[in-house]
């Protein structure tokens, strides 16, 4: 379906936020890799931010036109061919980077993958999912992490966090797109849920990197004075934040204005508009009242229940559908006392007559014997 954007649709803010997330992930990964392996001055960062933003806006707005002439099978063939070629390129680049350990080569690879990132953003809609930009961004994160230090740590932590936000926004947007337009405002809730899930991971990684700063790849032959200074890195990240915010604002506004809905659903399934009722409180379930067995019946039942509790401690599990006799057949315990206890329990629990004192004593004695036997016997 290639329809116009639906007015009042709650999907549009989510789509715009998703575009911002994928842009932020792209920019963060590219900037980290550039910072790690080349002289990423303000001009280069600005160029990367602007180039990626333009590619993102163009891809979101006009990307659908690229594949409009392609049949499903042609598109699939194109995607498989492209994915194979790209995978080969990634393996070749990483092998060359790791094998040579030459910073200049890795820097050049970084530039290539940064340009590829822009290309992926431009053609994001060709694959109907944003796997291309995500995969390439993660390759850039890998390249950045080879350099070690603060940049690698920031690349990994920021990359994972932005990936998480992107996935959450993408999921919410795709679900909403598959249904008729509604007033559900999910942007804040989606961000909140993603943040709550990502927080422990981000905090854990930050602590890990703080305790043990990541070292660069051992094979890399870094000249003694070539590494970026901490001041340069912090200045670069400040610039990156400014460029990123500007680019994100541009993308958010542009996508909301230009985005066309491309949601689709099987023709066999109709997505229906809903009348949503107000929330009602569920009735409280009735409290579980355990039967209280008094007198001699109670003593026999308690002897049996304590044996079951002891059996559970040793790993024995019974199903609610099992009768006492079923349990007795499976319980790894001395069969004589167990049989006596089971029969006395059945009589006390379900029988019409009050058990005698002798039966109670016999049950308690059998219970002790079974419990002692369970202690020695492992579950079969």
């Amino acid at each position, binding site marked *: 379906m290639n329809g116009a954007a639906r007015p009042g649709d*709650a999907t549009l803010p989510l789509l715009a936020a998703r575009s911002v997330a994928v842009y932020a992930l792209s920019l963060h990964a590219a900037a980290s890799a550039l910072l790690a392996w080349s002289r990423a001055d303000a001009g280069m960062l600005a160029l990367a931010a602007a180039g990626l933003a333009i590619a993102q806006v163009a891809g979101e707005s006009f990307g659908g036109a690229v594949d409009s002439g392609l049949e499903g099978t042609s598109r699939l063939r194109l995607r498989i061919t492209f994915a194979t070629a790209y995978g080969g390129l990634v393996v070749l680049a*990483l092998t060359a980077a790791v094998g040579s350990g030459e910073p200049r080569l890795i820097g050049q690879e970084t530039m290539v993958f940064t340009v590829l990132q822009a290309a992926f953003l431009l053609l994001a809609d060709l694959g*109907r*999912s944003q*796997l291309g930009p*995500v*995969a390439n961004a*993660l390759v850039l*994160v*890998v390249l950045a*992490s*080879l350099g*070690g230090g603060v940049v690698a740590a920031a*690349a*990994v*932590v920021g*990359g*994972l966090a932005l*990936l998480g936000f992107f*996935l*959450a926004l*993408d*999921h919410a947007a*795709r*679900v*909403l797109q*598959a*249904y008729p337009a*509604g007033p559900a405002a*999910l942007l804040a*809730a989606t961000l909140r*849920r*993603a943040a709550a*899930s*990502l927080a*422990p*991971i981000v905090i*854990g*990684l930050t602590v890990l*990197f703080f305790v043990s700063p*990541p*070292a660069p*790849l*051992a094979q890399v032959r870094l000249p003694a004075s070539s590494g970026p200074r901490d001041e340069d890195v912090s200045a670069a990240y400040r610039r990156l934040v400014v460029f990123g915010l500007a680019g994100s604002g541009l993308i958010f506004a542009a996508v909301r204005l230009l985005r066309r809905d491309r949601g*689709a*659903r099987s023709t*066999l*399934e*109709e*997505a*229906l*508009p*809903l*009348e*949503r*009722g107000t*929330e*009602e*409180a*569920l009735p409280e379930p009735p409290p579980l009242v355990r039967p209280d067995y008094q007198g001699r019946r109670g003593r026999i039942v308690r002897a049996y229940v304590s044996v079951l509790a002891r059996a559970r401690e040793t790993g024995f599990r019974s199903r609610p559908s099992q009768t006492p006799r079923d349990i007795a057949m499976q319980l790894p315990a001395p069969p004589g006392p167990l049989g006596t206890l089971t029969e006395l329990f059945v009589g006390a629990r379900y029988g019409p007559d009050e058990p005698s004192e002798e039966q109670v004593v016999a049950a308690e004695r059998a219970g002790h014997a079974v419990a002692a036997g369970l202690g020695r016997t492992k579950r079969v």
Partner: protein
Amino acid sequence: MNRARTAVYRRFLYAFLGFAGLLGLALRVEALAALALGGFALLFLAWRQGRGGMARLAVSREVYPSAFEGDTVPVSIALDNRSRRTSWLVEVRDSFGPAVADRQALLEPGPLRGARRRRLVYRTACSRPWGVYTVGPLVLSTSDPFGLFHEERLVPAVEPFAVFPRVWPVAGIEKLGARPSLSPQELTVPRPGQSLAYMGVRDFRPGDDMRRIHWPATARRGAPAVKEHEVDLVPYFTLFVDLDRAHRAGTGLKSTLEYLVRTSACLVWTAAGRGDLVQVLGEGARSLEVPPGSGTLHATQVLYELIRVQQEGRVGLLDLVDHHRMHLPAGSTAMLLAGTIFLDLARLDETLGALQSRGVRPVVVLVNKDTFLPIDRRAVPREEAAAQADAVTTLLRARGVPGAILAADQDLETELGRADLLEASR
């Protein structure tokens, strides 16, 4: 939602994080190993949240179990969140058999707080023709916040749903038997009978019930006098439906079964609507016997029985009428709905005569099966069919029996709505 796309991200992350982790361990690059660790932690969290999100959700459906063709039906889905956590983006798929689409998909975007229920109502049309369909099962699905793990649960809430044929008023039926009335209990005529309506007093005749003696009048006149009451004339309508398998012809909307069921439904609905006591009799694969009753609820019961009939019987219409005619009350109307015009005319004449002699007013509607696509036997030549139609018409006219012949090329709604449909002269 397209689950394949969700799986694409998840599979990519498995492959990529595995590769990054191996690379990090092999090259002793802590950042890469940490990237893999963090990524797998994200996947694990997502998996747990996906499983947990579904655990205590419950769904149930409420729908009135019948409707007419083309009606829009509201279906209410109750979504219960029995956990403490708030649920988001819960998808429910239902399968409403009478609709054209196989599945109906609904989204509860959330928030649905813990220990709360939300009712979702969707409306869908009964687009398929009359019959008994199923509604359900329900499928409940949720995902983790990242959409990586999709959980689905099938709820076997399958219920039958009856779609009744669309009914049109049969104009000619008003002229048969009693007049239309809002209250069938008031329908009487001022001639002696057994109703509760008091008409007057007359002289005692031999055979009169002693309990009916009007003692004050007897004392006044010096001769026995009895109270007279008006006769009950609650309209009584009996429909005999021909379900003989020998009269099957046509397919789908143009078949004798379709015409018989639709015509029966229209007749019953119209008769019930004016307050008649209605009973329906037929012999298909199983007996169709709906005892006399009145009101919309009874008519609905008749429709429910009608949509389940099959034209698989081996008892002819005239045999069926002969079997039941002794039980028809005087003054009632008996509608004979045949699947063919090739009835044995002598027997038809005899049956109509027997009914009329009992004070029952017969009406005959014939569906000309030879105008439908033949299924298991050849159609009768057109000339022969025309001659038979003339013979039947002549017989009905001679007996003064209202009747009509329906053919495949006629629009049923138009034909049944004609004021002169049930006139003997047609």
